[in-house]
């Protein structure tokens, strides 16, 4: 939850923006960014679907480098974990 994701604004309609990161596109609310003029092409740090701060492209790129690695490992792990849990037909805990 606390891991924000840097995204680029590709389309804007009022406080709603279409944002993109690594080819994934999401609807992001710009409602918390009323103090900051934002345009298509700008980068924002997104938390649970809401932009919380503006950032530069260079900052976004360096943040992504780190996340890329972390997320890739975690996704693979999650999948492995789920598979293991299914296979074990989890007996559950008291």
């Amino acid at each position, binding site marked *: 939850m606390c891991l924000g994701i840097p995204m680029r604004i590709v389309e804007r309609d009022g406080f709603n923006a279409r944002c993109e990161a690594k080819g994934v596109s999401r609807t992001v609310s710009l409602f918390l960014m009323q103090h900051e003029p934002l345009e298509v092409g700008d980068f924002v740090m997104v*938390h649970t679907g*809401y932009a919380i701060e503006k950032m530069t492209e260079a900052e976004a790129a360096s943040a992504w480098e780190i996340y890329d690695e972390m997320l890739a490992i975690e996704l693979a792990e999650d999948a492995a974990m789920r598979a293991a849990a299914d296979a074990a037909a989890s007996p559950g805990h008291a």
Partner: protein
Amino acid sequence: MTDPAAWLERIRALPLAGRVRVMNVCGGHERSISRAGLRALLPPQVELIPGPGCPVCVCPEEDIYDAIALAQRDEVTLVAFGDMLRVPCNAPKAQPRSLEQARAAGGDVRPIASPAEAVRIARDNPARQVVFFMAGFETTTAPLAGMIAEGLPDNLSILLSARLTWPAVAMLLASGEVGFDALVAPGHVATVMGPEEWDFVPAAHNIPAAVAGFGADSLLASLYSVLRQHVEDRAFLDNCYPVLVRPGGNPTARRLMDECFEVVDANWRGIGVLPASGFALRPHLAAHDARLRFDLAADPHRKRAGEMPPGCDCARVVLGRIYPDQCRLFGAACTPSSPVGPCMVSDEGACRIWWSTGKRECRPEDAPPAPVTGDA
């Protein structure tokens, strides 16, 4: 921007006399530290302690019990961040102990990734009572304020378990059993609330502090800063994440949060009530307070209400009093695929993070203090 290797070199060149314990208070930080294997790269005197950085882990057991009770009502659709679904409460036998089990038993429970989804689900299902069970720190409470300010459908209510980050640190510092010598403060909390919230750490307690981002460079910069402050005995609050953290924080987010919430004394699971540490909906939002909309009377006879699951040492893990692998259940009885406590459920829980970065076995509590992880 200086690269991680250069920061490491600077850190290694510092004349550290003895052990220095640096606490972080953000699951994201702990994740970056564990993933990057930073512990193994630092001088042996430096200990990195995961502290109170997981809102899911401290969400009161009673709130989870209430959420499960709501999820079992015919008219209710319960939505929550995915992390919350597997967190166990101490329900009596034969009753669901988690939202996931409530869903398996027929409850309408849906994981969401954004508060905006709660609004959409409520609008799409006008005949249902949609309850958003929201546990989070400031970084998720700000989006919630945005959601509320944009307008709530009548059929949407909120079961709020939101907490502030700094009061847990304040409690540790006042406890007489501080347990750390320096603090790395959470970057995105400071982005929203402003770095000034953390001024009290150096100012009132003479403990070095630095706000950090989530990359190795920013984290190492913050470690260098606090270690150097420690060596020079000159504590101040450093901002090592200036790209996002600005004085005063995010003014829109703070204004909306202030309009929606008041800061109240709040219960932390396994820890107790901390003064001025929780957000509560302001009176003008009472109609959307799930606690008022539904009759959520606590059962005074319920066993272990409010407690951690039997044998789970999460509260001490959250407070940084023990490392995750010092819990006797770690890695054996408790794993991410069959978690005993909340710290093994949440992505931000220290137990889960340690397990998933390769630490799989527990060690006795009196084992040597400096754990070397990051061998994953």
